């Protein structure tokens, strides 16, 4: 059987190819066949996988401490204003 898939077709299905489980086996076989026969698409798959891998391994940057402090201060004010009696757990609201 000759594969009728073009590179363009393959790229359109790249997500399905990269996220296993989302394609039916026959379609998947077509995609596998194309990527094994087409060096260009093989490189796209390989480099896209590596792209995902480097991003997944990278934690978000620390929030600048000035911004963190401001956030915590605002939250603490809010928390204090909500707990008139001190101990939590009550559902009573004034007014």
């Amino acid at each position, binding site marked *: 059987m000759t594969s009728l898939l073009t590179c363009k077709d393959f*790229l359109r299905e790249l997500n399905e190819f*990269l996220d296993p489980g989302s394609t039916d086996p026959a379609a998947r076989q077509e995609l596998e066949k194309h990527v094994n026969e087409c060096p260009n698409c093989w*490189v796209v798959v390989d480099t*896209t996988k590596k*792209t995902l891998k480097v991003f997944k391994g990278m934690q978000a*940057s620390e929030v600048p401490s000035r911004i963190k402090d401001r*956030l*915590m201060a605002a939250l603490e004010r809010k*928390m204090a204003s909500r707990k008139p009696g001190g101990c939590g*757990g009550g559902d009573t609201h004034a007014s």
Partner: protein
Amino acid sequence: MPEPPSFDEAPLVLRAKAGDDTAFADLVKHYERRIFRLAKNITQNDEDAEDVLQESFMKSYENLDRFQGNSKFYTWLVRIAVNEALMKLRKRKSDKSVSLDEQLDTGEDTLVREIAVWDDDPEQKYSQEELRSILDNAVSSLEPIYSTVFQLRDVDELSTEETAEVLGISVPAVKSRLLRARLQLREKLTRFFQRKGDDVFAYL
């Protein structure tokens, strides 16, 4: 593989809902980086991102008793942050039509222009700091509709459906934007990660 350590938010959420502010503060500390990054992606402005960060946690604290626990707390928090960020954009642009729903996708442009083989562990050529700035720059050069979908799906690992829901866009829109985001990032990273000495070929 450098997977982030798994974090079980559920016990903290229960305690926070029961009135334990220390537990809420722990949730804030755990998620503030991701919410700040999301806010920067959408607003593309540090000052707005700071406000969005603060507003998001304030609102989630105020409305915690309304959080049902059907979804993850983080997903709920993201939805609040996305709304806050969009409100900022609207104010800044004084344009009521701002949303993440715009159909800018041209669909046919697959965005593959360059083909070059990468090193096996391309990130090892760089220090953590260099790598972070390469990745941050690549993401922030994307349009917010792409960087946001990419962050939620591929970095924060929300499902396609959750991403669609928090952004208020359709599942097919999430899928097509994710594809474009991945391909654009691949393209942008190629010049940093390609194997030395190899030529770059134009894609047919």
